[in-house]
């Protein structure tokens, strides 16, 4: 044989990864076994072992049972089922193939999802005698969900239906109708018999009416999905390499696009801009690298880049967000609990994440949406996922790398769920964070103060505004730069479109918290005087800034005392029913559990309260002694 010619032919072939779906009875393992056998990936010693196994535990009455080649684990061979994902390899002069062989039963949904996650194409088996079943629909839905656009419907056991064209036509019609519903656009239907070998590798003479390619021929010629190269550059930074003081490289796998020396890029989520100074692909210097290559980039500028950041094309950056709508596939015996903190890993970023109430679970057999409180093993649901700080992302249908994530249990460290991001909430996806060189620290240094937020909360009439005003006067007199955001005043402008329903109160606080954060960033000491009755919103406001920057001041008063003072006459109005949703009367006030400062206004005068706040600021070093 001419090895050089062989090597030349095999140097430049492509790689196709596909998944096979179907149950044991559909003959899935037999089909893969047959492919391996006929592409001569089975050696004589393996064949000898197979013959022995076939006689011992085979299901073909002593004939060679190709399924036994594939079901690798001892438990699987004994029970005659496929439990886990197995990866198989075969090669032809045209291509190398990696097959993910996954189990078909509903209780192995997670395994199928795992196999589908890295596949370019799916081969879905149906038994010609049974046609499209519930499980065929389930497999097709999962395949489509995981972003596989090309499907081969392999109608197996044609030998058992007399190689009937009518049978195939009926099944194909049925299937195409359903495939369109779940968003599979490209379906190729091939009638086969895995056991008899029809149309697996060579065209079958027993089905002259079928003019399409054999399964293998199709797999060898189907276009490879290289669209990733045509999209904008995305490269998650895996590793920062600094072997010497004058080399700083950012290593990662290019998820999409092309990178060239001289390209302008941005680093997300910071938004900093830079220029590509050098490209190493698999360790060797080059001018250009494309999607799929493992590279190390150097930048002309000294900018801050760390593991988990994403380097993107400057003129077409990815979205940045921290709250997303996502589909979750639950993979663990312990159910998903909304509100619990998990770790989320997306590309090279691992970050704290919570799932807020689940919108619905999808019944993968009927596609129905079912309201649920938690997700159990193998459940698939749609929910909102919130991460601790903004991350770069893309919708899963555009990028598996920047849209696919796993959830990790913080205690057991197990991978408990997989998720697909669809879109960012709060429209944060189009707004890119503009990195600025003058920052909070620089501004605060100029004014010789440590910025912070003093958040005064308490019932109406507790004395919040009075005390906040006194504190600000004192700070101002000491030369501090301050601003006081007062609830009543803000409602005259920024928040004049909001009422007093719970939803409006939440939005009221969200806006004020964001404004306070901007002012903090400007280097100011910000005083916020708002009833802010709900703990969750105060916690949200605290979460926007760094530890130590948020000082919760609980202006404490008994409701009876506040009602007695009633400086603005509001309690009287509320009692008469002229004011709806008044805090303390017909809307709840949730007192702080651990405020930094608690002021008992039944014991302290407003001046004494103000001095207590100033004393706290001194003790924390926020203002000098």
């Amino acid at each position, binding site marked *: 044989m001419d090895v050089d010619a062989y090597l030349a032919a095999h140097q430049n072939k492509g790689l196709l990864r596909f998944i096979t779906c179907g149950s044991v009875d559909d003959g899935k393992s037999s089909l893969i076994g047959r492919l391996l056998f006929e592409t001569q990936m089975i050696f004589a010693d393996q064949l000898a072992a197979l013959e022995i196994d076939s006689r011992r535990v085979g299901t073909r009455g002593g004939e060679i049972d190709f399924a036994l080649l594939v079901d690798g*684990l001892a438990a699987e061979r004994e029970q005659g089922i496929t439990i886990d994902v197995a990866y198989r390899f075969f090669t032809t002069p045209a291509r190398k193939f990696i097959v993910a062989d996954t189990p078909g039963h509903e209780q192995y949904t997670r395994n199928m999802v795992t196999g589908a996650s890295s596949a370019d194409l799916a081969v879905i088996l149906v038994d010609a005698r049974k046609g499209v079943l519930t499980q065929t629909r389930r497999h097709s839905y999962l395949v489509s969900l995981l972003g596989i656009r090309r499907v081969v419907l392999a109608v197996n056991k044609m030998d058992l239906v007399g190689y009937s064209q009518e049978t195939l036509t009926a099944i194909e019609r049925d299937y195409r109708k359903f495939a369109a519903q779940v968003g599979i656009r490209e379906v190729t239907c091939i009638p086969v018999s895995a056991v008899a070998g029809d149309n697996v590798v060579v065209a079958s003479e027993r089905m002259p009416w079928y003019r399409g390619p054999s399964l293998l021929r199709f797999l060898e010629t189907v276009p490879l999905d290289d669209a990733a190269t045509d999209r904008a550059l995305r490269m998650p930074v895996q590793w920062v390499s600094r072997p010497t003081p004058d080399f700083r490289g950012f290593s990662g796998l290019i998820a999409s696009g092309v990178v060239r020396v001289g390209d302008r890029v941005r680093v997300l989520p910071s938004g900093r801009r830079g220029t590509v100074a050098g490209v190493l692909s698999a360790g060797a210097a080059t001018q250009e690298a494309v999607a799929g290559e*493992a590279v190390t980039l150097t930048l002309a500028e000294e900018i801050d880049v760390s593991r988990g950041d994403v380097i993107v094309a400057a003129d077409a950056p990815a979205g940045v967000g921290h709250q997303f709508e996502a589909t979750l596939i639950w993979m663990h015996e312990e159910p998903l609990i909304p509100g619990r903190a998990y770790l989320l890993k997306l590309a090279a970023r691992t970050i704290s994440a919570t799932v807020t109430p689940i919108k619905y679970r999808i019944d993968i057999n009927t596609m129905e949406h079912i309201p649920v409180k938690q997700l159990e093993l193998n459940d698939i649901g749609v929910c909102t996922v919130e991460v601790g700080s903004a991350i770069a992302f893309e919708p899963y249908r555009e990028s598996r790398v920047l849209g696919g994530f796993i959830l990790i249990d913080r205690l057991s460290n197990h991978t408990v769920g997989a998720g697909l991001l669809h879109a960012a909430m709060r429209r944060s996806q189009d707004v890119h964070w503009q990195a600025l060189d003058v920052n909070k620290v620089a501004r605060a240094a100029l004014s010789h103060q440590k910025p912070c937020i003093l958040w005064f909360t308490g019932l109406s009439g507790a004395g919040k505004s009075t005390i906040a005003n006194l504190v600000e006067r004192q700070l101002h007199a000491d030369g501090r730069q301050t601003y006081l955001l007062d609830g009543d005043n803000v409602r005259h402008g920024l928040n004049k479109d909001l009422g007093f329903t719970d939803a409006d109160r939440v939005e009221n606080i969200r806006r004020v918290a964001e404004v306070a954060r901007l002012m903090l960033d400007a280097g100011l000491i910000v005083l916020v005087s708002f009833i802010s009755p709900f703990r969750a919103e105060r916690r949200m406001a605290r979460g926007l800034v760094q530890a130590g920057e948020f000082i919760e001041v609980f202006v404490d008063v008994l409701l009876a005392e506040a009602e007695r003072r009633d400086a603005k006459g509001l309690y009287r109005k509320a009692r008469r029913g002229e004011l709806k949703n008044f805090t303390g009367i017909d809307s709840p006030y949730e007192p702080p559990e651990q405020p930094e400062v608690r002021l008992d206004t039944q014991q302290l005068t407003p001046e004494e309260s103000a001095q207590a706040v100033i004393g706290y600021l001194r003790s924390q070093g926020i203002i000098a002694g």
Partner: protein
Amino acid sequence: MSRTLTHLQRLEAESIHIFREVVAECERPVMLYSIGKDSSVMLHLALKAFAPAKPPFPLLQIASGWDFREMLEFRDATAQRFGLELLVHSNEAGTRAGIRPWTHGATYADIMLTQALLEALDRYRFDAAFGGGRRDEEKSRAKERIFSFRSAQHRWDPKNQRPELWQLYNARKNPGESIRVFPLSNWTELDVWQYIHQQQVPIVPLYLSAPRPVVRRGERLIMVDDERLPLEPGEVPEIRNVRFRTLGCYPLTGATESSAVTIPEVIGEMLLATTSERQGRAVDHDGAGSMERKKQEGYF
């Protein structure tokens, strides 16, 4: 503009990605360096992954005392050429007890290879170890994850593996746990040889045919690498042109008669071969499922 990568480029990129993930997420990684062709490819990939820096982990070789001399020479030359830290570990108790490949059968491999490996991992407190295992080698390996967890007792639980989706690897461990990582999981024997040829990866000369002294034992040709191999009565070493498809302890590794003196010739012979590469290894032939059992006990 579209450019499709070849299958070797895709495999190379996937392996490099795996190396970098481990180094970024684990505290004390190590590369199990068996000096074979898979180890050579693995090292070549590691050098590429971290260039211009050196791979930030040492190499660990488990020396049974019965390695081919040429392997040890190659090992030392390789570590020196790339300036890499090389750790060599042997099961000293086993050596003192006089455990011999031909006297202890399967126990020999367990004591001198598996136990020695576990000792070394514990002694240096490595939390991740790269191994050259490939999924095409054996049925139970086909089901093993790329990041494969071991309990504090180094046991593998095939029924409790973490799902591995996309190219997202969860490397978080519980105290005492460690990870075996297989960067070559998706490579086949043919891929490895093609890559060696294409990249001119240096390999131990034993893979190429040369006149070597051998004795025939049953169906195996065993090389008389030194005077310690006990010869049976009447047994006389003869010089034959042989090479090895796989390398291990010389008294247990069968040679193949061959005239292949270049890599393309080796590939040519391999394409015509009718036996899988592990058949040369006595250690794997204790009935179906034996590899799965060995893996559960800690064997790589």
